[in-house]
């Protein structure tokens, strides 16, 4: 095992309850030095509570919390070597921008000249040194966000905590700030723990993502692995779009598996599978290839009917009815399809096919669960 000092933050079986609800339920997590780790999940999944426990605003009910290898349970926020960028910015309205940024340094007892120099430097990093003497209310949302970032960064913390910092910004600004945040993180080399419900944000900036749901971490991995190899149906559905099929494993050998998902043809994929068990299979919409009717069916190749078609400019989104009656979404890049696909109309018979690497095995379907029957659920529209 690795030494505890390799981690800036460590959760060991942490539980936090509010009343009867476990907001965070027996979570174990290790944040590596210098990494950009995102806690991603829908509201109420426990991501913000986890962040607030690292900041010291909440104390865990059970488990151990280590910051820099040292026990941090019970240590108040003002004694922790971590700083937070708040969702609402939380800038002091009665202080100038430079005084906001220098606030923490002043609490630490640093001299006037020194804190002024450091604060100016931090403002330069976020390109706002020209607004040093203004009040926060005179700045735009994006600028206030950058001041909040500078105010936390100037403390040079062991870990910087960011609580949905881009949530209040409009789309264009959000994209710009994503680049900016990543640039700054690489420049200063501080560990970032970033809370967000926006999967695109998490995918584009993080070194690793912890996908959370109902107080537990569903999967912790690099963005590509989270997208390409989701371990659970929740992760598969939350990150990007996903078509779900349910069926029984009919064969599993030599790293191949076959599932009878009732779509008329066998669904085949790579990997190990539990034989004769009912499993859930995921298919990304962009991995499905829609071609005009060719009557040729077979494994991973099924005749279907187009239910609807939507132009998204660079893409076409089809909703297709499989022979089983289930509907799936297929997305085609217009730059790479032939004109025949471009001309497909609703009602047309088409062939939907996919590569054997496309189907993802997403675990055994629990017979008790009511949602085990749904064959097609997708999330997150763009």
């Amino acid at each position, binding site marked *: 095992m690795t030494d505890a000092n390799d981690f800036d933050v460590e959760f060991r079986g942490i539980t936090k309850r509010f009343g009867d609800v476990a907001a965070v339920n027996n979570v174990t997590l290790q944040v590596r030095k210098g990494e950009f780790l995102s806690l991603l999940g829908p509201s109420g999944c426990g991501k913000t509570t986890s962040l607030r426990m690292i900041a010291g605003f909440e104390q865990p009910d059970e488990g151990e919390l280590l910051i820099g290898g040292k026990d941090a349970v019970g240590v108040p926020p003002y004694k922790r070597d971590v700083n937070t960028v708040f969702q609402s910015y939380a800038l002091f309205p009665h202080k100038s921008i430079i005084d906001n940024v220098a606030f923490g340094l002043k*609490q630490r007892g640093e001299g006037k000249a020194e804190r002024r120099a450091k604060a100016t430097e931090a403002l330069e990093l976020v390109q706002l040194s020209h607004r040093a003497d203004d009040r926060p209310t005179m700045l735009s949302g994006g*600028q206030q966000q950058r001041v909040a970032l500078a105010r936390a960064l100037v403390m040079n913390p062991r870990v910087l905590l960011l609580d949905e910092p881009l949530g209040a910004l409009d789309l264009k600004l959000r994209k710009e700030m994503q680049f900016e945040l990543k640039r700054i993180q690489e420049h200063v080399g501080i560990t970032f723990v970033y809370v967000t419900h926006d999967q695109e944000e998490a995918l584009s900036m993080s070194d690793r993502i912890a996908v959370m749901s109902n107080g537990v971490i569903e999967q912790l991995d690099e963005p590509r692995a989270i997208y390409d190899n989701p371990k659970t149906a929740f992760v598969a559905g939350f990150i990007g779009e996903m078509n779900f099929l349910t069926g029984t494993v009919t064969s599993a050998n030599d790293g191949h598996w076959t599932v009878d998902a009732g779509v008329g043809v066998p669904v085949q994929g790579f990997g190990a599978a539990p034989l004769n068990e009912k499993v859930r299979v995921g298919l990304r919409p962009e991995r499905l290839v829609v071609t005009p009717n060719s009557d040729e069916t077979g494994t991973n190749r099924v005749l279907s009917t187009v239910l609807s078609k939507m132009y998204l400019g660079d893409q076409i989104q089809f909703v297709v009815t499989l022979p089983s009656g289930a509907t799936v979404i297929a997305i085609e890049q217009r730059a790479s399809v032939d004109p025949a696909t471009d001309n497909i109309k609703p009602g047309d018979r088409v062939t939907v096919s996919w590569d054997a690497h496309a189907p993802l095995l997403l675990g055994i379907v629990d017979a008790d669960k009511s949602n085990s029957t749904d064959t097609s659920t997708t999330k997150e529209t763009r």
Partner: protein
Amino acid sequence: MTVDTAAPAPQATASGAGEHRSFKPRYPAWLALPSLAYQIIFFLGAMAILVAFSFATQTGFNQITYGFSLEQYKAVLDPTYLGIFVRTLAMAAGGTLLTVVIGYPVAYWMARYLGDKKLLALLLIIVPFWTSFLIRTYALKIILDSNGFVGQTLHLDIMYSAWAVGIGLVYNYLPLFILPVFSSLERMDWTLIEAANDLSAKPFSAFRQVTLPLTLPGFVTGALLVFIPMTGEYVVPAILGGGKFVFIGNVIGDAFNSAQNPPFGSALAISLMLALSIFVVIYILVATKEERFGS
């Protein structure tokens, strides 16, 4: 304060929002006339009479000769009255201080920790106000009386002393301080305190640097609302001071009522107003010296 910077003049910058909004009055100005007339007749008019009285001389029982005499003001400077002036201002200042010390924590607790019970607490604070000031003060007299239940149990003998008057002042004016402070604490964004703690400020330090300056407008208003009427207090020293511990208000009352000497009473009243004005201007300057607010 922190890294000193010159107070920024609000400049019109490209990113500043809504610089060119006009606030032209939507209603004709003459609608304010009734209120203006009322003020002129009953406030400025009465003031003018008071000023005229103060420069007049008493020529006999109920007889006044108007003129420009400084006799009455010279009488005001008599050490006896100066002493009462000083006592009045000192008691009002002390009473205000005590009101602040008791009232601020109450307002803070209500605004921050009471949740949906806030309105109930607010009601409990306001309800005693629905009773006459006089009756409340008499009720307090029963409580403080050395022969009363509380007085006997605690062996208190503070009636007709500075303590009884002080307690009466604080009790009667406390809500006037709590309400404005509560309303500014209500508008407080408590995330700012988390931010301050996050930036290494200990709880009290965060309070001093963030909560206090941000609630200063309510604080200043509340303190003035309490201090000014306390200096003109008449009922509390009369009932709880029992004539042994008089305020300048009681002397003014006596001058008009029992002594039948309106010129002297007027001179006292004008002097009190002048003293108070100076006091209040200094207070506002000191209280808002550190933090000036831009909206």
